[in-house]
């Protein structure tokens, strides 16, 4: 398939997944704020920090108030990673590959986009915001379902899958990271019911509370961290996502699992083995959760660049001008 088409499908899928995760992000923080004692309103700042666009926020907004941060993440037409802009980018990518994706996908992405456009122009009461986050999550589920049900599971589909899981792995790590920031400042709270409440909120934000309870019953930080990073069954865990991405890469190239024919497979395979042989206490808590997650995000970015080099810019002679630039790497 054409490199440009692969690139567009990959990014279409990433942007939809990114929008969904932003909604989860904002939703969980929003809910947690409601549970926090009065006076802890400054907790919106970590959310901004983990986007990696802290400076941009400072410059355009100043104070990290709830209102500012939510606008920044949801409807800001200037901020290229807001939910609104993600949907715009997803749609533009889809538009350029309309002959490759199914018409059902195109129609559905269009209505997803219109949903966000409408929400952006209507009043933003807290109630309607929560509904909105819920709708965004559902729209993303629907888009994935339509993609899986109306597109042949060939090379283009695997690029969509690749984009989705790389984005999701990155976002799960960031959701975990932001909660780590939020929860850490009060060591005296560790192990209290308040702590329990907050970790439940983290799990709920990735729709993982029920699955976690079935598997581990009682909540401890180690178990939650282990679940979100290393669980092989939970579809939003980093391990699961990396596994899916790795399989997609091998389906694209046709090489056997456990071997590599291109830099993308090499990077992803290394990351997958690392996670497969990691233990939550020795390899994550011991190193420091934040440090571990930071390193993980770097590796995901390296894998993303390797995908670009392997398939999009593959060994072909360059032409001056006209060539599409790499789209914004995940910075949230």
């Amino acid at each position, binding site marked *: 398939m054409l490199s440009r088409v692969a690139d567009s499908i990959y990014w279409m899928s990433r942007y939809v997944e990114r929008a969904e995760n932003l909604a989860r992000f904002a939703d969980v923080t929003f809910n947690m704020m409601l549970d926090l004692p009065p006076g802890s309103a400054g907790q919106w700042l970590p959310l901004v920090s983990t986007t990696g666009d802290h400076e941009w926020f400072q410059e355009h907004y100043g104070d990290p108030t709830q209102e500012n941060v939510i606008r920044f993440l949801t409807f800001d037409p200037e901020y290229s990673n807001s939910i609104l802009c993600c949907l715009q980018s997803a749609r533009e990518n889809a538009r350029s590959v*309309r*002959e490759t994706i199914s018409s059902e996908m195109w129609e559905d992405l269009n209505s997803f986009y219109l949903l966000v456009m409408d929400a952006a122009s209507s009043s933003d009461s807290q109630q309607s915001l929560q509904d909105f986050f819920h709708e965004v999550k559902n729209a993303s589920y629907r888009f994935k379902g339509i993609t899986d049900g109306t597109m042949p599971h060939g090379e283009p589909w695997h690029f969509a899958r690749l984009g989705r899981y790389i984005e999701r792995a990155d976002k799960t790590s960031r959701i975990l990271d932001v909660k780590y920031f939020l929860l850490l400042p009060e060591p005296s709270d560790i192990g209290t019911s308040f702590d329990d409440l907050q970790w439940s909120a983290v799990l709920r934000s990735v729709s993982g509370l029920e699955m976690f309870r079935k598997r581990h019953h009682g909540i401890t930080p180690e178990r939650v961290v282990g679940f979100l990073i290393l669980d092989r069954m939970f579809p939003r865990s980093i391990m699961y996502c990396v596994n899916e991405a790795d399989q997609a890469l091998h389906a694209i190239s046709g090489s056997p699992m456990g071997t590599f024919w291109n830099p993308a497979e090499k990077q992803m395979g290394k990351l997958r083995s690392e996670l497969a042989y990691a233990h939550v206490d020795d390899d994550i808590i011991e190193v420091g959760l934040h440090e571990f997650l930071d390193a993980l995000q770097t590796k995901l970015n390296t894998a993303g660049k390797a995908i670009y080099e392997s398939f999009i810019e593959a060994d072909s002679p360059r032409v001056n001008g*006209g060539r599409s630039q790499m789209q914004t790497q995940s910075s949230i």
Partner: protein
Amino acid sequence: MSQSPTTHLDFSKYNTGEFFDELVDESGKPRNGAELLIEKLEALDFEELKRRQAGAERSLFRLGITFAVYGDTKGKEKIFPFDIIPRIVPSNEWEWLERGLKQRITALNMFIDDIYHAKWILKDKIIPEEIVLAAASYRKICQGLDPPRKIWCHITGTDLIRGGDGQIHVLEDNLRCPSGVSYVLQNRLVMKRSFPQIFAASHVKPVVDYPSQLLKTLEHLAPDGLPNPTVVVLSPGSFNSAYYEHSFLAQQMGVELVQGSDLVVHEGFVNMRTTAGLKRVDVIYRRIDDDFLDPKAFRPDSMLGVPGLFEVYRAGRVALANAPGTGIADDKVIYSYVDKIVQYYLKEDMIIPNVPTYLCWDDKQRDHVLKNLDKLVVKAANESGGYGMLVGPHSTKAEQDKFADLIKESPRNYIAQPTLSLSRVPTIIGDTVEGRHVDLRPYILYGKDIFVLPGGLTRVALKKGSLVVNSSQGGGSKDTWVIEKS
């Protein structure tokens, strides 16, 4: 003809005005071939007709047959307006048209080939040399080129109009990148859903095989001995207003839709960049003008094209449809010589007549044009899409003065034609049915044989009294039914 909610259409009360109507004659009787349609339309409750019209519009939206509105940042898209009352072409008239179009394309192809080789037609003084060589669409770089199978104009969309006297004329030859065929196919799909019974009873010639005919035409151009040539559609990209059509045709033919940046000239061949490396391309259906095709051969500032493409083409290692240089034959001054062109190459009389045309390049004719600007339609010789045009009777004095200056400045660049009273077709307008002016663009494919798609795009000027059918200027479309010979 006004309709109250429970009434039915009654075409005996339909007012054709002083125009030729395609479906009914002056007395309100259905024309040859339209009897069944008129009968069924009259039997239908008018509200039901409107419901079907609304249903058709919804399907077009769902199918995504939209065009982007330039400058609308909210990304709103519009459908190309569609009217469900079809235009009918009876079988005997269609046979005549088909013969006429094949004749015209055959002659024009010979003309182009001659112009870029020996130029016999100029040497024999059939056409003044200077008007050919001075045409903006004449490409000196194409001199001596031998396109595969000696075919230059593979895909043509010829604009036809019918005047008040009922005579069909050729208004324009579009030999560069004529668009609109996707609407023909999609309109037909929607019509079959809107009027399944009427459609089934009417014996309409099918249009569904256009994409496979197009693919055959393109594959015919591939270099010899290639069992499985790679065909692509080259588009300027998703911001082009005809992008929908480019992606539709690629999808229907099952070939890749590429942009200039997807193609690269490497070791003497054109290749596309794929996830598995470079892949050779053999035939390019390009929907980009000559000017932008290759910055090394044409406009150096083009970002849409492929550097070095023209050299590969000249060497015969890739085919282009339509061939570069083809535009010389749809120059509007050359147009006025098509009867002579047909006579010269085929020794036949031209079957479908042209519209009378005044050439501003000729002193006497220019005087006539300048004196009658308020009555004539003036067109720039090298423009299309309704741009660079003056419709005399609908223009202001200031506009006429502006065109007078333009004509005096570069007379070669302008032609004028009488304002024609285009024929009309009944069209749903609010709660009534009124006549609206139409033209017709059949599509002709020149491959191993010449194929004319039965029917074509009927464009309709939806504004009352308007003669401009272009989609950019308030035009819509209708399905065109060529009735099978019974």
